[in-house]
């Protein structure tokens, strides 16, 4: 369960978030949908604790990022907007590093590392240095290090960006599995079809505000549009910035 309450964030003159409130339940995949520049990435960055809001609060399973960042981040697996890897480390070393940063050690660390590498079908390239990895392999490394500590809550910022069909399907399958395991999953996208295919609930954000939320059916009903795409355009008020 993760939540934002009336979160406001300004960068200089720009008001990136103007009082965003949202709540993401366990056992569901929730899509954060919005055009480029709507504030999706900033909202997620507040959630995983690398951006401090000017006002409002962010919580993970009730732990406030501002006052108990450690407890909140321990319950969170993050695929951030930036997915940079260390070119001189192997895929396995990436996963181990993040496992250690989450306090895992010894046999448990090795077991969790092996499990997550197997789950993402990474054994073949697990012991190669990441320099020269394909985009699909890179995303898998980033996902593996985000999930190695078995987090109850998972936040993914544009997880399918730049992936080919095969890798996109793999991410979709992963989302379904995370939901089946009862986790709370929030992922952002500016691609309509992506959200329609994977999500139980959709939160539409535009110009730093939540403009609509609900199941895809509820969104269609609320906007009186037949397709989710039309509903989305109606909700954000323009077609600007859609991918």
């Amino acid at each position, binding site marked *: 369960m993760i939540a934002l309450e009336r979160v406001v964030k300004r*960068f200089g003159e720009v008001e990136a978030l103007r009082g965003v409130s949202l709540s993401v339940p366990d056992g569901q995949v929730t899509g954060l949908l919005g055009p480029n520049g709507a504030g999706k990435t900033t909202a997620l*960055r507040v959630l*995983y*604790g*690398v*951006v*401090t809001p000017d006002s409002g609060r962010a919580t993970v399973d009730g732990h406030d990022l501002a006052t*108990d*960042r*450690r*407890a*909140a*981040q*321990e319950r*969170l697996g*993050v*695929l*951030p*907007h*930036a*997915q*940079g*890897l*260390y*070119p*001189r*480390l192997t895929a396995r*070393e990436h996963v181990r*590093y*993040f496992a*250690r*940063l*989450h*306090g895992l050690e010894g046999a448990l660390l090795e077991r969790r590392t092996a499990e997550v590498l197997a789950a993402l079908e990474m054994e073949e390239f697990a012991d190669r240095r990441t320099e020269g990895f394909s985009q699909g392999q890179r995303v898998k490394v*980033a996902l593996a*290090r*985000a999930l190695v500590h078995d987090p109850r809550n998972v936040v993914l910022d544009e997880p399918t960006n730049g992936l080919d069909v095969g890798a996109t399907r793999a991410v979709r399958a992963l989302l379904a599995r995370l939901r089946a395991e009862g986790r709370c999953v929030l992922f952002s996208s500016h691609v309509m079809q992506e959200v329609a295919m994977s999500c139980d609930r959709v939160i539409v954000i535009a110009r730093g505000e939540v403009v609509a939320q609900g199941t895809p059916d509820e969104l269609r009903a609320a906007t009186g549009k037949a397709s989710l795409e039309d509903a989305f355009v109606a909700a954000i008020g323009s077609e600007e910035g859609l991918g």
Partner: protein
Amino acid sequence: MSGGPGRVLSLARAVLAKELVDGLRDRRTLSMALVFPLLGPLVLAASFSLVSGEARTADEQGVKLPIAGAEHAPGLVAFLAEAGIAAEPPPADPEGAVRRGDAEVVLVIPPGFGEELRAGRPAPVRLVVDESRRMASHASDRVHAVLAAWSARTAGQRLVLRGVHPLVTTPLAVETVDVSTPESRAALLFSVMPYFLVMALFMGGMAVAIDTTAGERERHSLEPLLANPVPRAALVLGKTGASSFFSLVALAETSLAFALVPVLLPPERLGFSLRLDPGVVARIFVLALPLLLAANALMILVASRARTFRAAQTTLSFLMLVPAVPGFVLAMTPVKVQPWMQVLPALAEQLVMVRLLRGEAVGAGDVLRAMAASLVLAAVLLAVAVRDLERGRVLFER
């Protein structure tokens, strides 16, 4: 959020281990930590053997001097020979020969020499040298000195002929007393050592300090790192620890190489005994440790504030000179030590190093004062780096 110092240290170890593996696999890091430290000692050894070798050849083998027109001044040629300067047949084109480097010095005695000399007028001789050649200057100095001696002797003979005591032309008797000891002469040569040691502190860890901060941000791996439940102090300590490790390697290598210079250059080759007490080297090494930590904390802080990898590189290469320059100045000119100098990190250490190298007794107070000052500086810089990270200014909000 902290979870106690034990957890901070445990996580700092995790960061340290990762950054060490990463650094050890980086060719840039290794070459800066391993190759650069040899530069100072190599320059020192090379200049020693060059300078001393040249002086030795001139002194031991005597100077060979091609003389054109030797037949015009047999007395002068004989005087030169007595002083160890052997006449040689002249080249066809004296100036060309010197310019090409075939001869170091050529003496040209014109036909009118004897006539002028007998008439009591200044008899002309020409000394052809290339002053821009270091090797030639020693030979030409020798020839100059012998010519001056001959001139003075001839002047004295003329005065005696006229009934004047030659000493009346020597109103001043200058006597130079050299109070230098072998240690202090060696110290003069080793005075560049503090400069190179301070450079090694920075150069050793610089690649890692930049790669783990500005580099981490530039390759977009900082954001995922910061999404982990890790106290910012653990990140700063781990990264500073990793860069300090490479500085430590560089410092040890530089110290060792300087200690080896006298071994590689034995006294019979140098013409004087050059000693560097291993105890002094060990003390200098320990003295430099807090400064090493401060240097790396400074590099981590500055590099994490730099916009890009390259910007960090430029800033640090310049910044590194600031603490090293006092060492360079100390090597050139003696400085009256003021109290504030003894607590100014880098300068304080270099002052103590110079005294240790000169073989002077250094009180424990001076050493501890210098080390404590650097330790305080390191702590302040680390605290600022942690605060930067906690405020998130390192990531996006710049």
